[in-house]
């Protein structure tokens, strides 16, 4: 019995992490119509930058925020100087992100060697809390809390601010938004930067659980991809629901069907793609 509770807690905390990763991925996909294949790399690079920050003596939260801002700046540069040159050509854009992910993976290998780096849980969040007769690790619950708070903040931003309204307009119909005078190109940079920042932040946040190793990018990117396809591109609610569903599948799959773990993971995405291509919460493309 308690084994299942442990798996459930792990599922939910992975779900929280996946949400931080895939919320930006989803917005980028929704707005720019490209799956950003560097997203896993930004997660990994963010984690490594966080590791360096910790080694320089920063505390965990400053390191993660700093890494988030660094990735946001990096993502903004990628969008502004590389993707912008290929605006409107979706496939070259996707392929460009693929090439960049090769480069980032190799740079990480060069800068931080190939040995996995484990990161300590921040001192204030070590230990367990008893809830309903079970004990839960505090750090994992904190990740869920951070994810939910981020979701709320993103929600408020998208629904109540001018920037959010412009992003929604861009997701719905970018050419029309452009005609209406919305600076869609600048919006692209902003959203790409935001997504990259969230991915870098999530990388540091996930480091105590996942540790940091070469190949982390290739492990996380497909998960973000499934989440977004399942939930629907450009939909925050979809990303949230999708994250927790995939968090569950990722942890329960190997426990229930060890040999078919990846089939369990990818089959729902395939079914959604074939039966409801816009995703569970996505709107049909115009």
């Amino acid at each position, binding site marked *: 019995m308690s084994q299942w509770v442990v798996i459930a807690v792990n599922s939910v905390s992975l779900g929280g992490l996946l949400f931080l990763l895939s919320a930006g991925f989803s917005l980028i996909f929704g707005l720019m119509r490209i799956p950003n294949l560097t997203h896993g790399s930004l997660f990994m690079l963010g984690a490594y930058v966080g590791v360096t920050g910790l080694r320089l003596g920063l505390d965990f939260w400053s390191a993660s925020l700093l890494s988030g801002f660094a990735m946001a700046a990096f993502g903004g540069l990628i969008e502004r100087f590389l993707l912008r040159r290929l605006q409107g050509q979706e496939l*070259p854009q996707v392929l460009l992100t693929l*090439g*960049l992910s090769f480069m980032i993976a190799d740079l990480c290998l*060069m800068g931080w060697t190939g040995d996995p780096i484990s990161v300590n849980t921040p001192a204030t969040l070590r230990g367990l809390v008893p809830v309903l007769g079970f004990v839960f690790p505090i750090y994992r619950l904190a990740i869920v809390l951070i994810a939910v708070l981020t979701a709320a903040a993103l929600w408020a931003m998208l629904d109540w601010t001018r920037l959010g309204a412009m992003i929604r307009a861009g997701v719905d119909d970018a050419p029309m938004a452009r005609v209406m005078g919305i600076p869609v190109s600048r919006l692209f940079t902003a959203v790409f930067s935001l997504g990259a920042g969230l991915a870098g932040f999530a990388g540091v946040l996930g480091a105590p659980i996942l540790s940091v190793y070469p190949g982390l990018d*290739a492990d996380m990117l497909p998960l973000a991809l499934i989440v977004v*396809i399942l939930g629907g591109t450009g939909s925050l609610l979809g990303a949230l629901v999708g994250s927790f569903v995939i968090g569950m599948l990722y942890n329960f799959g190997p426990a229930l069907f060890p*040999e078919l773990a990846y089939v369990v993971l990818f089959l729902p995405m395939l079914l959604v793609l074939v039966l409801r291509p816009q995703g569970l919460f996505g709107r049909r493309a115009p």
Partner: protein
Amino acid sequence: MKRTALVLVILALVTLPYWIGGSYYINIASQILIWAIFALGLNVLVGYGGLVSLGHAGLFGVAGYAAAWLVAAGASQLAAGVGALALTLLTSALFAVLALRATGIGFLMITLALGQILWGIAYRWISLTNGDNGINLSARPMPLGWSLAKPGAFYIATLVVFGLAVAAMARFAASPLGTSLRGSRDQPRRMTALGYDVWLIRFLAFVFSGFWTGIAGLLFCYYNQFVSPHLLALSSSAEVLLMVISGGSGTLLGPVVGAALVVVMKTVASGYIERWNLVLGAIFVAIIVLMPEGLVPGSWRLWHQAWHRRGPSAAEVSR
């Protein structure tokens, strides 16, 4: 002049084991040819069909795994090869039915998901595929009693298959099916209006592409005498796509040049340049940004521009 060049190239390729110096380089040449066949197969979809697949490594792996598995289960080499190809064709057809519900990015994502499922099976279904340890192939096949154990012999056999692949691709590109495939890439609606079944054209192209991917997978399995989940990984799919695009999709020579570029970078240059992956990524990014049509058509264009500096080029006139 073109014919002389062709004869010279064929002559150089056939005599390659004698002048290249050492079995190490012969093996690299074999690898280039195998990946070139794979890239040519993918090029049918990417170049002529405008359908970018990121799951072709799955088909590549199915062929290799099926052959190794059947031989390990006691089948003869011939039966295993035929069985593996049949299974690859079947898988391609299934891939096509699922993936062709979409085009563009949707197609790319579905193929990616399908490829990952096959990779997951190879990696995790240990009782069937032996997981990360892979399956060994006891020996290379002996077509007509001719041993392929030596690098030179294997190279020549691969070269023959490569020649067949190039001929088949040239024939395909000029055939009514190839022409209508290009039509369905550029103007799907008009093609439908003209009475073509665009879906069927794309389906046939997918299966044709899958066939050559399977051939390449078989050869790769014979070459290594070993298959592992790495064969089906997303990075394999990405690598072969990189070959097609860097060389120039939709051309006959482009994927071959791309395959040579990537394999040489991977094997030869990695001995001198430690960060070859970085260089590969940088080349890829540079090609997409500076020469989006690929190396072969891009160099052709630059050469032409330099040649016809004085007068406007044909492309500029038609614009």
